[in-house]
Each structure stands twice: as structure tokens, then as C-alpha cells.
């Protein structure tokens, strides 16, 4: 029951994200756009490239969807509205997101196309950049909650949301979240206009539909993740808890989608440089700062 409800919510969120993404990239607001796109894509021929690695080609998009759903499984939408409340929830989110990269690697290697392969390997480099910026801010969040349970992390933000308590961690995590779901300033694996779609270049028809859906679900999952870890999750006055989570997540998703409109795409080596030379020291400083505040100021 809970599982079905959460998956329905995720799909609805994915639809909203697809509408928003269309709005952010084309500048036209079309509420029916995703349905038309989906119908068109399902009607099209599903081409398989010559001498492709068939297993990877088929598994890639599905694995992308599965990893996004697995990450969503440990995120609470409201008290009790969670698929499994793991004792290692915050770590599990990270573990599931690592497989986003594996999925893109498969989708890049599978079709035996140049652009796709460049895109896939690029995302591996991108992972080397962003993965530390997911783990380290999460460490600071878990330090404050004194637990890895995602529900307890939300409860720990009763007095003050983490976005105010540790703004630096929030910014770093937000940027890393953008990089995970390869949204515009960090859309190196797809890079429209430069790689002609990258990992998505060789996919057509139903497979492309799955891939687009998986990407939209991934954006929703990361928006919910940011909400749960930094924006106080379901906490808020008057409205019911689930409404708060959904509202905040939609806002975060909209922010994630619209940020890219104003920033040019970053080159791979600049991305690595900035994430490693500035991101990681800042993340370590953030851990230090949170530790000092928790141990010295609060006690």
C-alpha cells in the first residue's frame, strides 16, 4: 500500500518535472507535453545499433530507473509514509545513487556509438568529482541527527532546518545533486549541442521513453533527498506533512531545473578542478564547523 502510494507520487512528480524541464529548456509551458512526447516515442521504431553489446544496451535504462527508485525507497514523505526505514538510510541513498553511474556507463558502452561512449566515460569522470561532495555533507547531516535513519534526520531539524544550520553543506550537496542527475551546468554525459545527446543519442522509441522517465524520476528522487536532508522534510505548520514534503520537493526540483538556464556548461576538467580543489576542502570545513557548533556552542 505504502509502496504503491510512494511510486504513484514519484511518477506524478516525474510528470511535473518533465513539464518543468520543457518549460526551462524551451521557454514554453505545456502541461500536456510529456504525454504527447511519450505517445510519440512509444509509436516510433526502436532501433538497435549494429554490433551493440545487447545486454548493456537493454539493461542500462532499466538500471537507471531501478537505482532512482531504490534511493527513493528510504526517503520518508511523511511520518510512516516510507517504504523501508533502514538503519543506514543516509548511506543507502548514496549506495543507490552510485548505480546511476553504472547505468550510464552501460548505456554508453552498449550501443557501440562514439558519442554515447564519450558521454558514458565522461560521467565516470564526473562521478569522481561529485561523489565526495555527496558523502561529506551527508556526514555533517548525520552528525547533527546522531543517526543514519532518514526519519530521525528529519526530526533533528525541528528547531532549525539544516539549510540554515549548515548553508555551506546545502550548497555543496545541491551542486552534487545537480551533477548526479546530469542537469544543465553539469550535463556532460548528454550535452545536447556538443555530443548530440551523448548516452541518449543511440536510444529510440520505447527505450528512450524509459530513459527519459528514469531521468525524471531521478530528478524527483534527488529533490526529495535535498528536502529530507536539508529543508526539514515533512516539518511545517498548518498543512499536512505530506503536503509539505511535496511542496518543498517541487520547489527544489524547479530550482534544480532553472539554475542551468543561467549558467553555461562546465568543461570536464574544470568540473573536476572545482569540485576537488574547492568543494572537498569546503565540505571538510563544513564538517569541522558542524562539529564545533554541536559540541561547543550547543552544549
Amino acid at each position, binding site marked *: 500500500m505504502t509502496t504503491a502510494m510512494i511510486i504513484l507520487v514519484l511518477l506524478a512528480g516525474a510528470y511535473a518535472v518533465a513539464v518543468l524541464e520543457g518549460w526551462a529548456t524551451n521557454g514554453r509551458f505545456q502541461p500536456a507535453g510529456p504525454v504527447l512526447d511519450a505517445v510519440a516515442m512509444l509509436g516510433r521504431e526502436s532501433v538497435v545499433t549494429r554490433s551493440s553489446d545487447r545486454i548493456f544496451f537493454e539493461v542500462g535504462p532499466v538500471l537507471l530507473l531501478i537505482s532512482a527508485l531504490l534511493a527513493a525507497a528510504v526517503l520518508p514523505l511523511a511520518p510512516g509514509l516510507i517504504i523501508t526505514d*533502514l*538503519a*543506514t538510510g543516509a548511506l543507502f541513498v548514496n*549506495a543507490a545513487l552510485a548505480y546511476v553511474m553504472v547505468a550510464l556507463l552501460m548505456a554508453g558502452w552498449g550501443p557501440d556509438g562514439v558519442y554515447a561512449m564519450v558521454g558514458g566515460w565522461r560521467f*565516470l569522470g564526473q*562521478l569522481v568529482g561529485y561523489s565526495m561532495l555527496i558523502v561529506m555533507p551527508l556526514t555533517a547531516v548525520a552528525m547533527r541527527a546522531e543517526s543514519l535513519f532518514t526519519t530521525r534526520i528529519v526530526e533533528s531539524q525541528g528547531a532549525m532546518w539544516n539549510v540554515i544550520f549548515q548553508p555551506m553543506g546545502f550548497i555543496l550537496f545541491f551542486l552534487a545533486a545537480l551533477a548526479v542527475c546530469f542537469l544543465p551546468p553539469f550535463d556532460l554525459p548528454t550535452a545536447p549541442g556538443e555530443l548530440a545527446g551523448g548516452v541518449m543519442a543511440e536510444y529510440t522509441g520505447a527505450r528512450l521513453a524509459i530513459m527519459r522517465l528514469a531521468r525524471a524520476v531521478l530528478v524527483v528522487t534527488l529533490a526529495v533527498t535535498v528536502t529530507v536532508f536539508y529543508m526539514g522534510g515533512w516539518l511545517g505548520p498548518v498543512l499536512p506533512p505530506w503536503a509539505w514534503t511535496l511542496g518543498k520537493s517541487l520547489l527544489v526540483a524547479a530550482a534544480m531545473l532553472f539554475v542551468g538556464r543561467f549558467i553555461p556548461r562546465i568543461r570536464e576538467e574544470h568540473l573536476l578542478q572545482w569540485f576537488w580543489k574547492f568543494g572537498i576542502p569546503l565540505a571538510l570545513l563544513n564538517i569541522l564547523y558542524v562539529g564545533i557548533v554541536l559540541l561547543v556552542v550547543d552544549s
Partner: protein
Amino acid sequence: MLQTIFVGLFGIAAIWFGVVVFTTSSMVRSALALLFSQAAVGAMFLAMQTEFLGVLQIMMMGTEMSIMAIFMVMYMMDPGGLMGMDMTHQKRISQVAGVLGALVVVGIVFLVGWGSIAGSVPPDQQVHGLGIELMERSMLIFETAGITILTAMIATIAVALERRQ
């Protein structure tokens, strides 16, 4: 009972993917087969109620083995496996060694009396227990691991740097 079945299933998956690593000729497939073998080992940990280590294993191997894949593509002569090159030597000896090694260990498993089996541990208690262990009794060992990582980082960079004139 259910636990045994799950441990066995994930174990079979781990072994099967482990065999695929050395039988497939495509190098990317080989690296990703190792990834799924290690992920199956992580799932075995989860089935044995060792939640933290299981999740950690699944997370770390996902990244580690993908990085292995790019090194395979870089350094192998035939990464796509389309030319059918044979990349093995001393096949007979290795097969004998592998089978003998496995048999000897299995023999030991059946010969030893394992004593009584302990009850289960709730996972949330585990994370706490492991943290206390890391910060109290085993702290020095944990620090050693950190120093080892630092040494390895320096050594790796020193070895791999291009020599300048």
C-alpha cells in the same frame, strides 16, 4: 531457513558473476561482472543482517569496479573482445590450483566443529556498536588504515607521474 536460501542465492549469483569475469572476452563486461559479483557479496552481507557493511560494500564496489572498467579499456589490446585474443597462460596449472584451493577450504569448513550459533543482532544497534568499536578499542587500527591510505595515495601519484626533464 529463509536466511539460508537468500544467502545461498546471492552466493550463487556472486560465484556465477565471478566465473563470467574470466570467461567473457569483452573487457567492459568483465569489469561489470566483477561489479555485480561484489554487489551480490554485499547483498549476502545484508542477508546475514550485517546492514552497514552490506550497504558500504554495494556502494564502494559500484564506484571501484567502474573505474576498473575504464582502466581495462585503456590498457587492454582488445577491449571490445571482438578479435578473440587469448589472454591466458598456464591454464591447466591454474585450473588445478583453483579447484584444489576451493576443495581444501571446503574440506576445512566441514571438518571444523563450529560450536554454537549466536542469536541475531538488530541493525540499528549495530551501527552504534561499530561506531563505538571504531572510536574506542580499535581506534589505533582505524588510524593505521587512514595513514595507509595516505601513503598509498602519495606512492601512487609518485609512481604514475610523468617524468619531467
